[in-house]
């Protein structure tokens, strides 16, 4: 009797995780991204140091920095830096709210994760549009 019951249970038990249909939970993605962007920003501090040193050295050094920053690859790196900074800052606020006991349940965490994704994209784009405008583009 008990043997038969275990057999039925064993057959009905789901094989988890179903790797072919496995979807990353939202909170897993936000958590891993927080760490990746943090590591990226750690290397980004070298760019910040370069900017400050170049400015302090004088117009010639600053021109070298400006040329590198204006190159398409420099722009690409700086865009990544902006994206990482905005994401890490916004998700960091989400973490601070959790520390304060706010929004610390699955539904709220999923919702706030999606909000952070959305706000990051919009904010980064706004920063770049305003930056290009302050440089005098599209006039």
């Amino acid at each position: 009797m008990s043997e038969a019951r275990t057999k039925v249970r064993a057959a009905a038990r789901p094989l988890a995780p179903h790797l072919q249909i496995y979807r990353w939970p939202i909170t897993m993605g936000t958590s891993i991204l927080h760490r990746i962007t943090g590591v990226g920003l750690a290397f980004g501090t070298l760019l910040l140091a370069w900017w400050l040193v170049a400015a302090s050295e004088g117009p010639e050094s600053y021109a070298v920095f400006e040329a590198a920053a204006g190159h398409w690859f420099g722009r690409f790196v700086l865009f990544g830096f902006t994206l990482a900074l905005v994401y890490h800052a916004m998700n960091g606020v989400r973490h601070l709210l959790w520390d304060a006991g706010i929004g610390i349940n699955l539904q709220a965490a999923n919702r706030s994760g999606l909000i952070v994704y959305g706000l990051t994209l919009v904010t980064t784009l706004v920063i770049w549009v305003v930056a290009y405008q302050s440089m005098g583009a599209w006039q």
Partner: protein
Amino acid sequence: MSIQTPLGRVRGYGSAKSGTQHFWYQRMTAVALVPLTLWFVWAVVRYTGAPHAEVMSFLSHPVSGIAMAMFVVVGLVHMLLGAKVVIEDYIHRESTKIALLVLLHFAVFAVALTCVVAVLRILT
């Protein structure tokens, strides 16, 4: 078998390693970085592509110079605490781990000093 309770056994030894200090400093720097990052992003957007003289006159104002130095120092302390955890999480060979942690501390100190000296040179 001891008749001591688990709590009784650990009492008096102090915390394991540094207790909550790492956690607390990570949060304190995070809170400080919220306004500093907002200011930094504003400054970068405002002075992107600006001529050298304009950037210098901005950074040579004491308030912005000090704010920039604070952003750099607090940011690097926050980065040091975070990177330390990343290294401890993924590097399991003791010798490699210690070498990387030492290198991290040296690098953070060097970058922080470089930035602060640059800001001071602009300020004076």
